[in-house]
């Protein structure tokens, strides 16, 4: 058994391109998905059933099924439902956005609920109206508390994004498994890809811990 990890170097640019695609999809889905997730969380804490129930059903469904089937459904079935073709990158992005929105809405909902009843009491005692209470008191606190779990969600999405290779998007996962089969050297290339994923995700998780400690120090 002999390995030739130097072979990896000659494909370095291809792998980095793959990482670029991975990051492009991840960042786009993070931005759109987080905004959508915030709206969904507001629907879920609203007192109106017509908003609450569809939001709840959506979140439960996307958290209760594998992302792979979500991706396949949007990729293969959605065009049939709407009766027109969808470009692959759109359906992939849509799948990632919907997954991200489902998990971030839970994060936001958790932090909104974690604001203590006493804070709400203080708002009444100070005569704050609903708008001032929401914008100046509740949202800022909830958003601050959401920062660390939101960052974890971003890392989770980054890892989940490897799935888009299964519908032919040339991300890091896709190019590394392609090169492994064409060169018949899976050990070298798959290991290299795993290390690249790790090198991005690991510092991000450390950063989450750091930010969490900072926030705890300042606001409790």
């Amino acid at each position, binding site marked *: 058994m002999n390995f030739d990890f130097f072979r990896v170097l000659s494909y370095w640019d291809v792998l980095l391109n793959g990482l670029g695609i991975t990051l492009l999809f991840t960042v786009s889905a993070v931005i759109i998905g987080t905004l959508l997730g915030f709206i969904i969380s507001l629907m879920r804490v609203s007192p109106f059933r017509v908003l609450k129930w569809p939001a709840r059903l959506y979140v439960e469904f996307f958290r209760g099924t594998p992302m792979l089937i979500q991706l396949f459904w949007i990729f293969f079935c959605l065009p049939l439902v709407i009766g027109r073709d969808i470009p692959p990158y759109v359906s992939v992005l849509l799948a990632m956005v919907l997954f991200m929105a489902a998990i971030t809405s839970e994060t936001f909902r958790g932090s909104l609920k974690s604001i203590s009843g*006493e*804070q709400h*009491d*203080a708002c*009444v*005692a*100070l*005569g*704050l*109206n609903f708008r*001032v209470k929401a914008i*100046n*008191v509740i949202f*800022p*606190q909830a958003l*601050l508390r959401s920062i660390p779990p939101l960052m974890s969600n971003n890392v989770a999405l980054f890892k989940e994004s490897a799935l888009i290779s299964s519908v032919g998007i040339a991300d890091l996962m896709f190019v590394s498994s392609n090169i492994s089969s064409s060169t018949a050297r899976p050990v070298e290339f798959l290991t290299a890809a795993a290390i690249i994923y790790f090198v991005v995700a690991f510092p991000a998780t450390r950063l989450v811990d750091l930010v969490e400690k900072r926030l705890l*120090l*300042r*606001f*409790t």
Partner: protein
Amino acid sequence: MNMVDNINKQQEEETAKYQGAEDNSPLIEFKGVTKRFGDTCVMDEMDLKMKAGDRLVIIGPSGSGKSTLLRVLMGLEKIDKGEIFFGSNPYITVDRKGRTRTDMSVRSKIGMVFQHYTLFPHLSVMSNLTLSPVKVRGMARSEAEDRAREYLARLGMEDKLYSYPGKLSGGQKQRVAIARALMLEPKLMLFDEVTSALDPEMVAEIEKVMLDLAKQKMAMMIVTHDMYFAKKIATESVFIAGGKVIEKCDPEIMFNEPKQERTRDFLDKVLHLK
């Protein structure tokens, strides 16, 4: 029998200083107010009057409905029956469908300070004070900031203007909370066990702030476990148990020779003098 004789002597002079409320017009009146939490009745057809010049101290065993009384008055809890007047105007009433109606213009004349400070942790001391005057009352920011400086200076906190609540001690937080309530220039201040969460060495600084307010003739309703302080600051005292007013009288009488057996029992227990 004179239960708190020794404390009396020590505090007699001080107390006299804070007496002398003269405004005898009615400020607050509870008429047959009932409040239930599920099956438990925390306020049972309660009647209670308070004059504009009063500093009313509410004492009673835990679970007797003292805090609920203040929370109802602040509009934090709904009521099931009865009505509450502010001056001669109806303030909180119950409509035919059983819904609680609150006159918001009256509510804005009442301020409240809580046991756990309830400062907004993401805002500086200054922003905590100016938020409501600027955003709700429409006061100019510069005016609100000037006033905030003045109040904080009066409470000895002028150097903490731009600190965040997380950096303050319990006593400092509670002083900021009091200043925050005063910013709205209330006609009545409610104090709900404001020293209970404090370390003993910080209790005195808050009590001093409250006594200073008393000198300025601020009407207050105070729920406290500190009987010595209660006696010192009160112009009127009320003992509540089981959601009812058991005894309401001058603090001199309440703490020396209460008329009611239950009041006496309670004071015996909390003052450990039996």
